[in-house]
């Protein structure tokens, strides 16, 4: 299947500062792709190049299998990190305007805006001026305005910032719905728990370079020690090829494997010993750890 987006050796400089240096990655159709990195890593520049707001100095980019063109405007949508709405305008008017800019007719944009406002629980503020909304409400209106046109590729830059847990869950569910409908999302966020929950694949940028890239489970495995979490009934017997065992709580143990011990061998040993195994899982490094290890300590595992 043709990737929705291909970045190949993309570079960009602002004056003396290198924002991107030979960045390459692909985004597949229907996935949630995490574009990660610390502040100033080049994420926003990548997005701006994708949205044709700035032009790359080098490299190539293909969107929906073709070089970027104005036709793509209606197939893409962008929620920038630095958000804003027309504060003196009515909520519905702003949403209709953004919808029309994405190629919808006025009537269609208005109908969709009303549906979305209902969906995010803000029907009552339809005719309010934007400046009367709280920060969280404005945030939700902006997300709704971004998704109004049902874009094929949706770029969300920090969509959870400023949201309470209820609204965070709402936005998380919306992203899930986009994936379920077969559309693609590029998610840029510093909330690594959300990356683990939502993203299929990730690219981690640091100082304008891609330092980590791949399916999220694979990335986490790559940066994980050989560790198991085992929940059993009764006592944990002596296991072969195990370096250490830590009891997290009664019945649940964290097992660090020695050298190249095969985790399946540990499971087989437990079954052979007649221990009822309630839960058996590979412990993966949290994305937050990986982020810190890569960005702060320069750890590189390919």
């Amino acid at each position: 299947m043709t990737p929705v987006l291909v970045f190949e050796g993309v570079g960009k400089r602002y004056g003396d500062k290198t924002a991107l240096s030979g960045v390459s990655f692909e985004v597949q159709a229907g996935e949630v792709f995490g574009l990660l990195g610390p502040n100033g890593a080049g994420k926003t520049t990548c997005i701006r190049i994708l949205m044709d707001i700035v032009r790359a100095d080098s490299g190539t980019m293909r969107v929906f299998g073709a070089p970027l063109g104005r036709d793509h405007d209606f197939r893409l949508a962008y929620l920038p990190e630095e958000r804003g709405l027309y504060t003196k305008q009515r909520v519905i008017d702003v949403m209709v305007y953004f919808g029309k800019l994405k190629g919808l007719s006025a009537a269609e944009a208005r109908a969709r805006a009303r549906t979305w406002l209902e969906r995010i629980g803000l029907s009552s503020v339809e005719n309010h001026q934007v400046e009367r909304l709280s920060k969280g409400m404005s945030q939700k209106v902006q997300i709704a305005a971004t998704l109004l046109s049902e874009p094929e590729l949706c770029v969300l830059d920090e969509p959870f910032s400023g949201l309470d847990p209820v609204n965070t869950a709402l936005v998380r569910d919306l992203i899930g719905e986009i994936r379920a409908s077969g559309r693609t999302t590029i998610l840029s966020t510093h909330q690594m728990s959300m990356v683990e929950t939502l993203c299929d694949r990730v690219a981690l940028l640091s100082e304008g370079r891609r330092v980590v890239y791949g399916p999220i489970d694979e990335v986490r495995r790559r940066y994980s020690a050989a560790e198991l979490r085992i929940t059993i009934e009764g006592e944990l017997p002596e296991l072969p090829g195990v370096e250490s065992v830590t009891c997290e709580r009664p019945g649940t143990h964290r097992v660090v494997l020695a050298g190249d011990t095969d985790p399946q061998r540990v499971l087989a040993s437990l079954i052979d010993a007649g221990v009822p195994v309630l839960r058996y899982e590979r412990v993966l490094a949290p994305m937050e750890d990986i982020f810190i290890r890569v960005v702060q300590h320069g750890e590189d595992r390919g």
Partner: protein
Amino acid sequence: MRWRTVRTVTWFELTSTVRRLGYLIVTLGMPVFALLYAGLALIPAKLAKEQESAPRIYGVVDQAALLGLGDGEVIVVRSAGFRCFGDEARARRALTDERAIRSYFVVTPDYLASGRVLAHTGPASGLGPWEGRAELSELLRTRLLGTRVEPKVAARLLEPIAGRETFRVGGDGQVEAEGSDAFIGRLVLPIGFVFLLFTSILMSGSYLIQATATEKENKVVEVLLSSATADEIMTGKLLGLGGAGLLQVLIWLTMTLGVRFGFAQLVLPLDVQIAWQAVAIAPVLFITAYAFLGSLMLGTGSFGGNVRESQQLGMFWAFLATLPLMFVPLLLTDPHGLVAHVLTWIPFSAPATLVLRLSLDPDGMSVWEVAGSIAVLVLSTWAAVRLASRLFRVGLLLTGARPSLREIWRQAKGAP
């Protein structure tokens, strides 16, 4: 450029501006304010007119015995009455005690040789000792001539050009009669054109810059640029906010003409003869000039960090647009001279100069000069819009410290 997107931006900018309370107050309040101001200004004028209906009385002591008036006799010349006094003491009493006269003049005995007249003021002397001088001079001239030359000759000496008729000889040699105010009438179009152009540019330019600065402050810019090109946004803004500015000016003009106040009263009684060539070309020039100056204002204005800074940057172009006004006296005296030719080819001055020259003497300009000047203006407008849209994009995305001119140029060149 996608015109549907341009239309969307245009409509949004137009409707959101004209619905703004500030716009409505200025649009509808300005004529009301002007009417009130004019009403207040008319009160003293009306009072002065009422006073003028009764002649102002001055005293005259005719020591040269030229006027042939008896003691106490009054003669009226236009709006002034002259009361004759046999001696100065009586005139002085009339001035100070009785306050019957505003001032008095003494025509000295040696007047014929010296021309000496002494003016005396008192407590109610109005505008000074020589108020009424023109009427007294006319009285003296009449008396001097009356006995020495024929009445007809005297009348011609007093008013050598009493009957005026004006004719205009066209390029084809045909002679046509025209009113004596026709020259002023021919200036109505260029003056109106320049007034409309500058007012629209100033009003719309202010809205353009304000809207752009607000978008920067509200951080809506990236959403816009991800949906439309800088060209489309800028063109939409120029049309929408230009429309709002023009609508405002048209409302003012309509209200002004509607009440026949000011401009209408000044213009309508005149013999207004407007060259059709100037009329035909004015709308094209107006739109092109607006696009030319508006885009430059928007392009440079977008580099401001806030509304005030943006206005300072953008308004520079509005002042350049006033260039032809400095040359108006020269253009009036020599509409086809070197200065006029040069100004015709400079995009900043071309619109007003062309309209002025075509209004004053449509036959004096060759078709090639008109067409060439318009072509230069259109090309300059195209280049200005292209350049401004790139600057506009760089300016819109600008945050923090302003980059150097070289860096701005580099980014503008590399902009999508």
